[in-house]
């Protein structure tokens, strides 16, 4: 097969670019330590969340600067998050466990890397660090029914010395 010289060069450059992209993403995983949400959260029976740690969702302190937040997404609110904000202290490591009581939802904390699908039967586990105080909006970013656009909430990172417990 005859391939034009320019085409050979172009193909080589394209392959180089592709390998470069893969290297970038690999660096993100290995070097920068960006972990993808995976199956570590396990599964759960969406019909009987009351019998699980999602029965009383909210913030739990599990270590000196470590917190767990269980969140239930349902048409059309986050528990906690919508009626009362999720509160965590600054300078903390927070692991979110998010699941759905009904349909597929999304859990996006705008302006951060927290962006996961919330699928009934599955628990999304994601760990993040909050260094500074601030306020973030939580958005459901997967269509979940006629009231989808009303499904939002808030996450408040309060100064460490003012923290009086979660939600």
């Amino acid at each position, binding site marked *: 097969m005859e391939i034009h010289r320019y085409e050979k060069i172009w193909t080589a450059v394209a392959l180089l670019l592709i390998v470069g992209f893969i290297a970038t*993403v690999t660096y993100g995983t290995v070097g920068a330590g960006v972990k993808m949400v995976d199956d570590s959260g396990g599964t759960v029976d969406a019909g009987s969340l009351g019998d699980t740690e999602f029965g009383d969702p909210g913030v739990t302190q599990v270590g000196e600067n470590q917190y767990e937040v269980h969140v239930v997404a349902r048409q059309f609110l986050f528990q906690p998050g919508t009626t009362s904000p999720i509160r965590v202290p600054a300078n903390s490591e927070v692991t979110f466990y998010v699941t759905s009581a009904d349909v597929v939802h999304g859990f996006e904390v705008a302006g951060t890397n927290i962006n996961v699908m919330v699928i009934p039967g599955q628990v999304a586990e994601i760990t993040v660090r909050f260094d500074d105080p601030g306020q973030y909006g939580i958005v459901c970013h997967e269509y979940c029914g006629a009231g989808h656009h009303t499904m939002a909430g808030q996450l408040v990172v309060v100064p460490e010395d003012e923290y009086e417990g979660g939600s």
Partner: protein
Amino acid sequence: MAYVDDFPTDARIVRWNMAVAFLALGIGGLFGMIQALHRTGIFRGFVSSADYYTVLTGHGVLLALVFTIFALCGVFTWGVTRSLDRPLPSPRFTMGWFVLMLVGAAMAAVTIIGGLVPSMPFKADVLYTFYAPMQAHPAFYIGLVLFIVGTWLAGVDWFRAYWQWRGDNPGERIPLQTFMVLVTMLMWYISSAGVAVEVLFFLLPWSLGLIESVDPLLTRTLFWYFGHPVVYFWLMPAYFIWYTILPKLSGGRLFSDPLARVVFVLFLLLSTPVGFHHQYVDPGIPEGFKFIAMTNTMFLLLPSFLTAFTVVASMEHGARQRGGEGRLNWLRKLPWDEPAFAGCALAGLMFAAGGFSGMINAGMNINYLIHNTLWVPGHFHLTVGTASALTFMAAGYWLFPQITGNRLRFRSLATIQPYVWFIGMTLMSNAMHRAGLAGVPRRTAEPQYDTVSFQGVVGGISEMRLQIAIGGTILFLGLVLFLIVIFGTWLGGSGNDSLRVNSSIPAPLSGPEHSPKILDNLKLWTAIAVVLIALAYGLPLWALVSDGLLAPGSPPIPV
């Protein structure tokens, strides 16, 4: 002799397929403008925010499935009969798949539109991804099944024509256009099996109450097994047009037939084992499988890079045949006032931009930044919404005279139309990308919240909204121009004009005789494709079903 004179029966089926495609484009495009005005808050008088999702479902299904696939069937029927120089074997069989697809599409469409009419008992506000456990009326799923089965039979029709031709022409290379059609259909058979299993074995029996629950993650995974290859089902007919028609429109000939074959084989191999890149942020799927999908996806860029080279080289060759000179000055000699050429060229240009934004989507951990934000529809309005849609429209300008026997009418409208589309899409898509970077979600009627403020990275949110609304309106205007030209040509002509265009395609600069025969070994490539899919999907699918096919289960939640 025009195509309609040589193949009157096939020309009729091409016409009907294209007519259905472009009608769906008209309705779906109107829905698109309504959405652009509604979600930006510029005008919310068309529908309520609850009904927005009915409109959005209609937009997705009518454009991403009905428009694209009927257009594909029209273009491919033309390409197979033209390149084999024989009609499809049985007009009755051909009519059979067309009617099946039409009935299926109409059933799904009527069920969706039912959401706007309170007195109608059926609804399907489930968007075109129809994720369980949100449940549509069973008629929606039945319509989808009929439609997909119709496409399978269309493929059988084209294969039968090829086998007949092969009987008369043993040992010859498969003509390029037919080769592209067959490879595309093989890709489609392999990938649409996923959605067929999802709908037939899970969603349909579940919506009819025959099974109590389905596993939302499993059905979602089956959807995306199909959901990425389907984008190549939109793009490969556009590539087909860029490779085989655009060089002629530019005034030259295709640069390389062998590389065109390589590109299509690469798509067959790599289109399917990448579906997990739509599920990068799904729980329940181990990171390793996401990583495999990421590397496969990146390599899937290669055939598109090769296409960019061949298409530009073919255009340059054409321009130089027309007297173009200089390093870039040849660009001036291209027929920018020919709507068929301008549409294809502008579509290709936008596809390059869409390809780059797609690399961000494909970037696994980078995907956290933009997943399910407005970035994603910003991306695919450049790909399916322009690379495919504008190319199909451009092909329509060239093909409609040949399948109707009428000269193109309203030429001046046709001449400006691709530019109108290009401008509208530039405004809309750039703003959607930037809004996505700020975190503005997709698929929502009112992305304005009391508790959330989005920080624009480049530009302000209100400026982005304005561009989206204006861009969406200009796009709809471009669509109206297109429909006037096409249906004006079809309905307003006399049928015995002497045409300015014909279906003859000049031989490539480098022909099939320069390529190894193994490229035409369709069985081999199909087998390798299946092995790659087994590697990418075998273990994760096994893990999903090993805890029970229907567990963890969800009962239906009707919309």
